[in-house]
């Protein structure tokens, strides 16, 4: 009983040493719990062998002007478009400030290789593959790509122009390793 009385007296003035010990114990258990759980969650992230599949070399000498080809990078499609002068013109004529994801065409290609547009073939909405790689497929009203899932329309620079997608088609990291080859990844 004396003990109880002591605790009550202490409660009246504020926190007790016991409260402090309880808080620190709970805090340490919390930290320990997170440290236990994080490796389990992180194990769900891409494994080392998955990450190792991350470059693709492509010979672009065979892609004629106006042609578009699909290559596989990290198990997903990448679009390589050898654009015509008219297509590049159309991409440059756009008033950049009016775009949903404002980016000039020059920021989406490599200098000196403006004819080649290289973008990831996944719609930035929910990841469907946009159509327009073949001339027989719908390319949307801006001559680029059209996503059949939810109706996003991309222009000849792969920029979002209409529909629900929030961003331009993503540009994968790539470099021209020679005049005719490009390394993606």
């Amino acid at each position, binding site marked *: 009983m004396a003990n109880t009385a002591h605790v009550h007296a202490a409660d009246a003035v504020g926190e007790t040493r016991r409260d402090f010990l309880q808080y620190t114990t709970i805090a340490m258990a919390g930290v320990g719990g997170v440290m236990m759980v994080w490796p389990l*969650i992180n194990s*769900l*992230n*891409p*494994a080392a062998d*998955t990450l190792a599949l991350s470059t693709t070399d492509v010979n672009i000498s065979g892609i004629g002007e106006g042609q578009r080809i*699909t290559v*596989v990078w*990290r*198990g*997903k*499609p990448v679009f390589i478009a050898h654009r015509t002068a008219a297509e590049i013109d159309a991409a440059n004529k756009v008033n950049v400030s009016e775009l949903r994801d404002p980016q000039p065409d020059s920021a989406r290609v490599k200098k000196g290789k403006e004819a080649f547009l290289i973008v990831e073939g*996944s719609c930035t*909405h*929910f*990841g*469907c*593959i946009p159509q327009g790689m073949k001339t027989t497929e719908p390319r949307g009203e801006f001559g680029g790509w059209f996503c*059949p*899932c*939810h*109706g996003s329309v991309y222009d000849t620079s792969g920029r979002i122009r209409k*529909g*629900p*997608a*929030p961003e331009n088609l993503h540009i994968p990291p790539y470099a021209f390793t020679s005049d005719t080859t490009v390394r993606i990844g």
Partner: protein
Amino acid sequence: MSTEKSVWRKAYEWHEARLPIVTWLDHSLGTKYPVPRNLNYWWNFGSLAMFMLAVMIFSGIVLAMHYTPHATMAFDSVERIMRDVNNGWMIRYMHMNGASFFFIVVYIHILRGMYYGSYKAPREVLWWIGLLIYLAMMATAFLGYVLPWGQMSFWGATVITNFFSAIPGVGDSIVTLLWGGFGVDNPTLNRFFSLHYLLPFVIIGLVFLHIWALHVPGANNPLGIDAAPSDKIPFFPYYVMKDVFGLAVFVVFYFVVVFWFPNSMGEAVNYVTANPLQTPEHIVPEWYYLPFYAILRSIPNKLLGIILMFGSILILFALPWLDTSRVRSGNFRPVFRVFFAIWIVDVLILGYVGMKPAEGIIPTIGMIGTFWYFLHFAVILPVLGWLETPKPLPASISQAVLKPAE
């Protein structure tokens, strides 16, 4: 001899004294569980849902013994179940259509609760747990749909996991974490299989809580008034018999579909192996997601579409407070009945919109339908509680029956 207890009786009493499981069951779903005497057949669907959960778990356990969760082997292992495994076709069709019938039963169960005001005080927590079961069912059904690794499996998984990319800032990292790679691939299939096997047992736990929460206030009834003890009858044998009869009728419908129309609710393109380099012409989710998919598609903004889609279900958690009327049963609310019917038609229209390609008039109808869906919960129900004059409630369940006609 006759005065002496039999050895079985003694063994039973010995065991009950240590673990009173039979007594517990008798109180849960037996002679010691009093239920209002006036329940109609809409009250059968809770036990039917439990039956479907059991069917899904048992058929699923057997399917898992023949299924291979690997990107290069999953599709073929499902085809092997269909062609080579003894009775495999039947077990798979039971599981595949069982998902649809589980949802049919649960949707009727939810609508019954909404019409008769079963979510109102003191049954709010019971309603919440029911909604959690529904959310867990949707997740389980989605994960399971991915497992056959057909075209719809793959692209459904791609679209739905990409929902999370709408989260500002961390969205892309979350999606990579879900995939375990740069796209939906073998690691994704493995973890989906693991979670698809786990979640039904989570649902069992939630069902246990659901029934527990049901027993605290007891069952609602078609009149929506509190039932006096004299207006209650024991669950066993009365409602057990009624549930068994309902089950027999339900099973006829279920097996007519399993045996004669097993693919009527599926998509033919899911019998084509998953191809990460080609999206099918027209992506449609399973029918039970269609109204929510329509809400998502109607909003021409990625993040807002996601928020409204999840919001359309989350708003149901607030239903006990959005509905300001104190009268539970729709039978006594003439105006509510009309709006409830309109809301059901609205959801059916949204379902139709979700099924059709988003072109022409369809997105506009979707927007109007979405607007009405939220208007119903956020404006109509709260206001209706104040404006509507309900019909007079009977003093008791027996009075409603015995009172001479006026």
